[in-house]
């Protein structure tokens, strides 16, 4: 595929530039260890996040605190023990200055102890498990993406007030799914809602007709669904095929109806509400610029993962700029990162100094047909959401 070859060239170019600078006695290159899935089911997320980072690094001409930036990439694969092995390689063999990446929560938990004990700074750019901000947080671990609680909790109250008090829940049966449903129910029940039916389907299901048949029986006012990747695409298409699309409103978290899923299912996604910390059509100047730049550079619309990559690169560069490129002291780096605050594509970006989790706005969006193109339009801004920690 074009990207792989071009990215490969691009990658070696960055290395070349980095080395060249190094050779001419300039400051030594800032080496960032990137652990993302480049093979297997989550390969697309890995690629989006990497493209987001490369886009921002281009904007700052690959400079951070006067030092050229160099990304050292490793494949996280689907096996958490491989992720841990790659993190160890990056720290001990490639001597990286700091780490970023990790799409799957299981991999994040797997590397958490090693990163904490070896006092290496890790900036998680996707994995959303709540524990990394709560009982298993670490001063050296920051997160620029989200926690499952952050994305789902606000939606509960909004749905109870605006859509219906009778909801049926369909969710993929894995930790991320269960945490999101728990957060959703927390606010939905508090706002007087009632969950009439809960169905958990195995991850990687290829057929949801059974769950949809049960939905038809329960006759809820609306459905809260939590699915990702191919599960989301299959579910949405069968939701439409069963005629549910027009009869029962669907609300999900943003991941279920992200741009790549809309591209895959088209009409079937229309009308679906979703809550997320970003939307392609979010009317913010920074966001428009980001979306145009990404489309020009990569020829496709950015996804929330690309936006997270973009912001992650910015967090790193701004922190290193604050230290003028001197990363000798880990504690100073942590302080610098805590101090990072900027207006990005998603709006105001700042860290909660207690949990090192991003504090961000959560928006309610709906898939609408605007100018015969289906995309997530923002219908409500649920304000600043901070994970309780």
């Amino acid at each position, binding site marked *: *595929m074009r990207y792989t070859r071009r990215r490969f060239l691009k990658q070696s170019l960055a290395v070349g530039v980095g080395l060249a600078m190094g050779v001419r006695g300039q400051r030594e290159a800032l080496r960032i260890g990137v652990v993302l899935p480049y093979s*297997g*089911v989550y390969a*697309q997320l890995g690629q989006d996040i990497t493209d987001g980072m490369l886009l921002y690094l281009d904007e700052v001409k690959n400079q951070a605190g006067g030092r050229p930036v160099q990304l050292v990439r490793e494949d996280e694969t689907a096996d958490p023990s491989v992720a841990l092995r790659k993190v160890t390689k990056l720290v001990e063999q490639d001597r990286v200055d700091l780490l970023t990446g990790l799409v799957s929560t299981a991999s994040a938990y797997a590397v958490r102890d090693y990163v904490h004990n070896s006092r290496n700074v890790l900036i998680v750019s996707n994995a959303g498990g709540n524990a990394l901000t709560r009982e298993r947080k670490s001063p050296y671990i920051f997160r620029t993406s989200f926690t499952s609680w952050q994305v789902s909790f606000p939606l509960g109250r909004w749905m109870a007030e605006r859509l219906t008090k009778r909801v049926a829940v369909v969710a993929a049966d894995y930790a991320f799914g269960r945490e999101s449903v728990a957060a959703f129910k927390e606010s939905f029940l508090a706002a007087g809602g009632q969950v009439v039916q809960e169905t958990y389907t*195995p991850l990687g299901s*290829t057929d949801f007709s059974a769950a949809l048949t049960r939905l038809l029986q329960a006759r809820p006012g609306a459905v809260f669904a939590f699915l990702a990747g191919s599960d989301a695409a*299959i579910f949405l298409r069968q939701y439409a095929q069963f005629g549910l699309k027009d009869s029962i409103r669907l609300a999900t978290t943003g991941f279920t109806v992200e741009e790549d899923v809309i591209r*895959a299912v088209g009409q079937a996604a229309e009308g679906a509400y979703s809550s997320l910390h970003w939307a392609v059509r979010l009317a913010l100047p920074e966001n428009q610029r980001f979306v145009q730049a990404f489309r020009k550079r990569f020829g496709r619309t950015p996804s929330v993962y690309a936006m997270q990559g973009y912001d992650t690169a910015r967090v790193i560069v701004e922190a290193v700029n604050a230290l003028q490129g001197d990363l000798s002291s880990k504690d100073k780096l942590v302080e610098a990162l805590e101090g990072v605050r900027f207006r990005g594509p998603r709006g105001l970006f700042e860290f909660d100094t207690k949990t090192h989790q991003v504090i961000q706005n959560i928006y309610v969006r709906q898939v609408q047909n605007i100018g015969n193109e289906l995309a997530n339009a923002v219908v409500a801004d649920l304000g600043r959401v901070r994970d309780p920690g």
Partner: protein
Amino acid sequence: MEFYLFVLLNGLAYAALLFLLAAGLSLVYGVGRVLHLAHGGFFMLGGYMGYSLYQWAGNFWLALALAPLLALAVGLITERLVRIVYGPDRALEQVLFTFGLAFVISDLTRFFWGAQVLGVPPPPVLNRPMGLGPVVYPAYPLFLILVGTVVALGLWALMRFTRFGLEVRAAAGHPKMAEALGVPTTQVLRRTYLLGVALAALGGVLAAPRLALAPGLDFTMLILGLIVVVIGGLGSVTGALYGALLVGLADSLGRTFLPQFALAVIFLLMALVLVFRPEGLLGGRR
């Protein structure tokens, strides 16, 4: 009452896809004693080719017709490779070789089509719920059941009434004697392999509107295909049919009553069959 009708129809639609995948797998083992672990790869390849054809031609039916032929072209190449491991008592080498081939196909597919989740919309005429008496049920799965039945009958007729079918059953039944009666068993194996590839690709295209095309689909379908042929009995079309129906219905029941453990239900079913009938339901009858 219509709830159980749904469960049945969901199961049959799923069985149709499983049958298309398993028929080829079972026949190739029957004729050549070769376990083709790359078969799931051709199912996925068929789906991706259907996607590209649909993008290019904009017509689902054209994609449905052309994808199996395209997959056949790839099948011609891989058949030449798999020929290395044909022959008796080479089970270990066959597992290694076809497992490697499955990896190659899986990565090449990702190289050409990328890792995004891709989908093919069902043809407009089928993209709406159908009224089945008092009840509403999506049209596409019914179409799948129809195609599954047509292909099952077609294969049954092919096996029963054509020269090719006769030679396949003879080569599967008694290879040495078949050759003494002039049946070119290696030729037959080649044609069976290509038939299997085309069927799997057809299954892939049909599945695209129902499932999503994403990396990993090949190995998911391979496991299901192996379960179907092992439960139904390796080596014959009828074995694949019984297995597909049983697994399809068990899966649908599992998903309805034990949603989290649907896959476990299927594995439990296979384990039970294998403990009491060590050679699958139809036994050793190849």
